[in-house]
């Protein structure tokens, strides 16, 4: 049972508060993504878990044991670094078996473990290669295998896929998730890529300015963002200043009555309305929000109409098959699909 619990964890670098009173519980065997923009404290949190930084306050418990006073090299964790940190002076198998070698494991076991892990990451028979002979994706796999060599209590990964190009990255996301599921190891991944988080995670923890903004499943985070920051950071959204008076949403000169499925997550008063582009409907001028098309982005899989409604920019997304016959400069009418509107503080 290796539940990971973070209790009231803070980290100060001089006067800078990198992590501000964070408490999270990560159940055994779950895949967690720490997601946020750079400087949000996600890497600091990971390094605190690994013991590479000392907390200013708070505790880290793994399986109920407080690790605060345990040095990094006795925590029994596996970690993949952003730079991968593969040892250039060792070959692939020696890299993977390094944590075993320094524990005095015998040669045969080391070789067997390296071979088993190389099979797991789909690099069978590559144990004798030098690191500089490997491609970026292969290095990635070796780093993952090395992190798993001692059956770690917790597997930590710091932006592990950021160096890969887009196609390979998506492929590795799926593979990493499959490896994690086959082993059932509690895993924490730091990423700034929301797609990556939504692809892999059981649990996404969105962070900003050293604080947890929201923790939840990918679908909760996407469909029920806790605040405007989360709504904007996860996927694209249109954020518009609005006023919620308890009965209706006043936005851009219109009053919208909440419909079934709309979420009101703000107290009456000034708030923000979040509507995802795919929930903005675009039509010929009519009763909706009067807007003008300023740009059309055709991505093949979808078409984005960027419009201006007064000073507010609103993006509408439609499927290519349903593309309305509008061009740049045309006047249009926009509406927000009822049941898909979210009012946020």
């Amino acid at each position: 049972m290796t539940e990971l619990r973070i209790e009231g964890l803070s980290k100060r670098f001089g006067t800078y508060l990198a992590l501000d009173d964070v408490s999270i519980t990560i159940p055994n065997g779950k895949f967690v993504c720490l997601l946020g923009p750079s400087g949000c404290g996600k890497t600091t949190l990971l390094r605190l878990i690994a013991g590479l930084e000392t907390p200013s306050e708070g505790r880290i418990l793994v399986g109920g044991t407080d690790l605060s006073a345990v040095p990094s090299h006795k925590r029994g964790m596996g970690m993949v670094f952003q730079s991968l940190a593969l040892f250039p002076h060792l070959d692939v198998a020696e890299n993977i078996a390094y944590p075993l070698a320094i524990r005095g494991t015998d040669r045969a076991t080391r070789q067997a473990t390296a071979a088993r892990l190389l099979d797991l990451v789909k690099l069978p028979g590559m144990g004798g290669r030098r690191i500089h002979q490997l491609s970026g994706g292969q290095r990635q796999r070796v780093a993952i295998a090395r992190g798993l060599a001692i059956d770690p209590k917790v597997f930590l990964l710091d932006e592990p896929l950021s160096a890969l190009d887009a196609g390979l990255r998506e492929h590795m996301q799926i593979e990493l998730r499959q490896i994690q599921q086959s082993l059932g190891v509690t895993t924490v991944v730091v990423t700034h890529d929301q797609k990556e988080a939504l692809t892999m995670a059981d649990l996404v923890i969105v962070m900003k300015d050293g604080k947890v903004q929201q923790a939840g499943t990918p679908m909760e985070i996407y469909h029920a963002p806790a605040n405007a920051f989360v709504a904007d950071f996860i996927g694209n959204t249109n954020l518009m200043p609005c006023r919620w008076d308890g009965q209706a949403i006043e936005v851009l000169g219109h009053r919208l009555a909440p419909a079934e499925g709309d979420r009101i997550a703000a107290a009456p008063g000034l708030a923000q309305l979040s509507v995802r582009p795919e929930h903005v409907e675009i039509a010929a001028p009519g009763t909706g929000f009067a807007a003008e098309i300023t740009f059309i982005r055709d991505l093949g899989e979808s078409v984005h109409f960027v419009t201006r409604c007064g000073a507010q920019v609103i993006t509408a997304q439609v499927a290519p098959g349903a593309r309305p016959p509008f061009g740049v400069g045309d006047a249009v009418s926009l509406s927000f699909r009822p049941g898909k509107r979210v009012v946020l503080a």
Partner: protein
Amino acid sequence: MTHLAEPETAVPRWIALWPALMLGLFFLVPFGIMLSVSVAHRVEGGFFEPGFEWASYIRFLTPFFGRVLAVSLGISLAAAAICVVLAFPFTVFLASMSRSVQTRVLVVLLSVLSLSEVIIGFSLSTLLSQTAGIGNLFAAIGLIDAPRAYTPSLFALLTGLCYLGFPFAVLVLYAPVSRLDPEIVEAARVMGASAARAFFGVVVPLQRGALTGAFILVFVFTLGSYLLPQLLGRPGHWTLSVHITDQAIYQANLPFAAAMSVFLMLVALALVGLASLAGRDRGAA
């Protein structure tokens, strides 16, 4: 508040004790003793006795010392200037070569640079000698009537100092020059600058700090030359280094030698400081 484990650093703090001890004992202490000797009282015919007097420093004001200083500085300045002028294009061209060419040239430069002054002096005096040198070559092609020796002379000494300083100048210039973005020169060429114009209008101004720094460092380097003035020059060309050794060993005047040493060190330190300032200036520009 529970005690939190401080992440261990890769090396313990006490590791610095050993180098600090060695450098302190064998560099700072000797320097301190030298300072104290420089103000000690000289005993004629013996060594010195402890004391505090400026007598050795006051000797700097004599015409003898003035002449030594002028000769020392003048010869080194000339050599440093020649070295840097020759070495700068050399380094720029070298940096544009492939790695294997660069490595080979660096091997030659390092080998020459590491050669003992006594070997450089011997080689050059052989090259400039009557029996084995270029005099033979000149005579053979009819340039002069009979082989002659070109050493000892000021020309021979300057040649020697340049021989000593040139590899050093290239190696000092090598790091900043090789960091120069080749695209800057290419940009100048694309915008219509000729090769020469790109060199003098872009490369030289960009490297002004490095050039100044290299000039000063080569100057200090040649200032330290001790054997070449004796092997290739005439007694009138002796540098401060030679006089310091001469005073210390043959005249047995340690206080005066120490005082000259202290003086030379102050000059060198000031110049090296200037050189590093010039180098930094390049980074800021």
